[in-house]
Each structure stands twice: as structure tokens, then as C-alpha cells.
């Protein structure tokens, strides 16, 4: 375990020292600062501020883009190291290693974002820790915020796994185009017109009334499982399809 950590730590260190990663990190911090400093609802409740910002357009699109760039950067750096790749024996192992690395680096970015955002928001809001009811749910805004954050984390990570596999299958340009098309749907799409089960990821980055919390929880779990199945199918396809790296 210690050896495995050393192996990945060395790679993570190398990738996080690249200029591209530093630029991405800078944008993550900017997004955290914007959220922490500017979003102050009239009653100044901390948890309402968290939910407001994280269901906003600027957050969803900005966050998705920086994580996409971080993922592509990790993929490009990883594939540049052919002495490493040839020792992984086959392309299935290569993809497995790459996905783990992407999850670790994106997890690190997410953690940095959360720390900076919460810290700045706390300073900005001072001691406004009041909770308010969320719709007619049986839980209050503090618990709902934690649920919202965990769901956002899981969704971002699964989407980045999907993007990693898309990178391997389609290369970086087509992956960016697919993501941009996806992101452009967001401003013209109104979640209120959606039917009961929501398929677009934006619905899970928005505060939408499902009638009761249990129903929202159930739909969220179902949606995450659906994405996991999509990731597994893409993984199987990518490891069976013959792929070569332009960068090699």
C-alpha cells in the first residue's frame, strides 16, 4: 500500500508541478473565491449561500470546465511517459492506472476548492449558521448542503472518469467538443420543464423540489448508478477497441 502510494504520489507531484496544472489550480481558487466572497443572500444564512452558489450557472459551467481541463492535462502527461506505459503490459492496465490518477488529482482539486470556499465563506458570513427548511423536506439546509456536496463530488468524479475514457477513445479535441456541446445545453435548458426522472446532469447541480427528500435521494442514487454503468460499458469498449496515442 505504501509502495503504491509512493508510485502515485510521485506521478501526482510531477503532474501538479506542470504549468498547465498551476493555471487550472488558479481557476479553481478563483471559482472558490467568487463563491465565498460574492454570494451573500439577503438573510445571510451560510447554508443557503452554499446551495445558491453551487446551483448557479457560473459555478456549474466553470467547475465542469476546470475539472475537464485537469482531466485532459492528467491524460496528456500520463501518455507522454512511454517508459511507464510499456511496463503496464496492456492497454486495460494503462486505462485503469490513468483513471485512478485522474480520480486522485481531481479529488485533490476538489478538496482544495472546498477548503478555500468554506474558509472564505465563513469569514464573509461570520456567524450566520442559521438553518432553514428546504421545501417541504424533513431535513434542513445544513444536512441538505452536505448531501448536495457529496452528490456533486460523486457526479464530477464519474463525469471525469467518462471524460478520461472518451479521451482514450476519441482523443482530446473530440472530448472537448462533446463537453462544450453538453455545457451549452445548460443555459437554454429549463429544469422545471423536466419530467419526473431527470437525465441531464445539471438537474443534480440545481436545487429542485422533488416533493420529499427520500425521492430526491432515490433519484440521485439511481442517476449515479446509471452513470457508473455507462462508465463501465465505455471502459469495456475502450479496452477492446484498438487505440493509439497521437502523442506517443
Amino acid at each position: 500500500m505504501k509502495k503504491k502510494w509512493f508510485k502515485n504520489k510521485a506521478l501526482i507531484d510531477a503532474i501538479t508541478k506542470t504549468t498547465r496544472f498551476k493555471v487550472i489550480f488558479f481557476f479553481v481558487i478563483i471559482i472558490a473565491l467568487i463563491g465565498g466572497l460574492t454570494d451573500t443572500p439577503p438573510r445571510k444564512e451560510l447554508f443557503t449561500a452554499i446551495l445558491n452558489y453551487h446551483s448557479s450557472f457560473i459555478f456549474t459551467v466553470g467547475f465542469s470546465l476546470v475539472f475537464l481541463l485537469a482531466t485532459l492535462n492528467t491524460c496528456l502527461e500520463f501518455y507522454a511517459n512511454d517508459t511507464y506505459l510499456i511496463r503496464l503490459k496492456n492497454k486495460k492496465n494503462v486505462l485503469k492506472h490513468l483513471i485512478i490518477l485522474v480520480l486522485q488529482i481531481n479529488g485533490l482539486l476538489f478538496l482544495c476548492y472546498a477548503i478555500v470556499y468554506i474558509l472564505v465563506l465563513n469569514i464573509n458570513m461570520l456567524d450566520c449558521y442559521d438553518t432553514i427548511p428546504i421545501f417541504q423536506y424533513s431535513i434542513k439546509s445544513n444536512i441538505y448542503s452536505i448531501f448536495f456536496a457529496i452528490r456533486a463530488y460523486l457526479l464530477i468524479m464519474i463525469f471525469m472518469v467518462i471524460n478520461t475514457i472518451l479521451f482514450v477513445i476519441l482523443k482530446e479535441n473530440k472530448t472537448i467538443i462533446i463537453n462544450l456541446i453538453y455545457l451549452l445545453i445548460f443555459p437554454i435548458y429549463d429544469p422545471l420543464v423536466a419530467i419526473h426522472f431527470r437525465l441531464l446532469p445539471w438537474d443534480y447541480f440545481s436545487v429542485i423540489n422533488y416533493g420529499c427528500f427520500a425521492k430526491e435521494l432515490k433519484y440521485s442514487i439511481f442517476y449515479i448508478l446509471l452513470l457508473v454503468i455507462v462508465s463501465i460499458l465505455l471502459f469495456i469498449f475502450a479496452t477492446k477497441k484498438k487505440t493509439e496515442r497521437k502523442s506517443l
Partner: protein
Amino acid sequence: MKIEIKNVSKKFKDINALENVSMTLESGKIYGFVGHNGSGKTVLLKLICAFLEPSTGEILFDGVNVIKENSFPPSTRALIERPNFLSDLTGKENLELLARIQNKIGEKEIEETIEKVGLKQVENRLYYKYSLGMKQKLGIAQVLMENPDVLILDEPFNGLDEDSAKNIREILLKEKEQGKLIILATHIKEDMGLLCDEFYKFNDGIVTKEEKK
């Protein structure tokens, strides 16, 4: 180990990097790929390593088409172009990192290889402080350390001083005696004269076998 390259061509958009290349490479020999920069040597090395796929034709390792199986060639190590080591690790740590992927060798083998290529004095120096020659030696060390059956070296003598180049030549001859299949690519034929058993000349994607003089 026997590598059969059968009617392999490689196209990049409209450019023919390699045209209908066929050759058979066998253990216990050193093969020299000679040609000017951009003649297709490195492309063929990458195809052999399965980093690229041929546009047509196939490459077999003991009869197995590794590209079809989405694998990399068995027991093969390569130094192609600039080795991409981690700059904030020492030379030795970089080798340890690579060795841990397959866990075939331990500290002892890594130390022996470092000694063999002449990096003992600087094994604990950070990689980014290495000179071009030291980086090249480290690249060669990662090829040698796990005792592979096939060694692929692209411009192995780049940046090496005369003594170091002589040392590497001796190492390669010893590896050959142990039955290894070695492929060397260079744009300077004189590098290879004493080493290679067979030569292949690369000229704008066309490969011809040359007799050893």
C-alpha cells in the same frame, strides 16, 4: 524471441511515414536502423512497441500480434526519443518508480544497473540536475534493469562522451551474447559499425536491408 514485421505501412494523414516494411528480427543479434532524421526509424520503433498501430500489415512477437490483443510486447523495454523521467526525483528513485510497476526486481538489481551504466556517483542527484549524458545513461539503465528479452534504443549514444559510449557498446555486446534481441536506431552509421549484425537503411519511409561491410 522472434519479431516478424510483415508488410507494415504507416500513414499520418497524407504522409507516408513507412511503406510496406518487412523484416524478421531474432534473438542474439543486434540490428541497426540507420537513416536521416524523419526517415521513419522512430515510427517503426513505436510500432514495434505498440505505441502506434500500423495502417496496414502486422507485427508478430513469437507469432502473436500484440496490437490485436491491445497489449504491449512482452519482455520489451525501450528508450525512444527523450526519456520522460520525473524531474523532482533522483535518478535512482526514477528507476525504483519504474521497477515497482512490475515488481520483478529489487534494490540490488537497480544498484547493479546504475553501477553498470556509470551513474553510481550521481544516483542520488535530482534528475533535473542531470546533464544530457546522464539523462541518456538513465534512459539506458531503465531499458537494461529488468533484464528484458528485447531492447529497443533510439539514438542511444546521443550526449554520451567517448568513454561512456564505449561502455554502453560493451554492455550491449554482453547483452547480445546472453541472447538478447537488440534494435538500435541512429542517424550516424559510424555509431553502429562495430556493434550491429544487420543494418536496415531508412529513406523517407522506404526500408532496405544493407550488407555489413
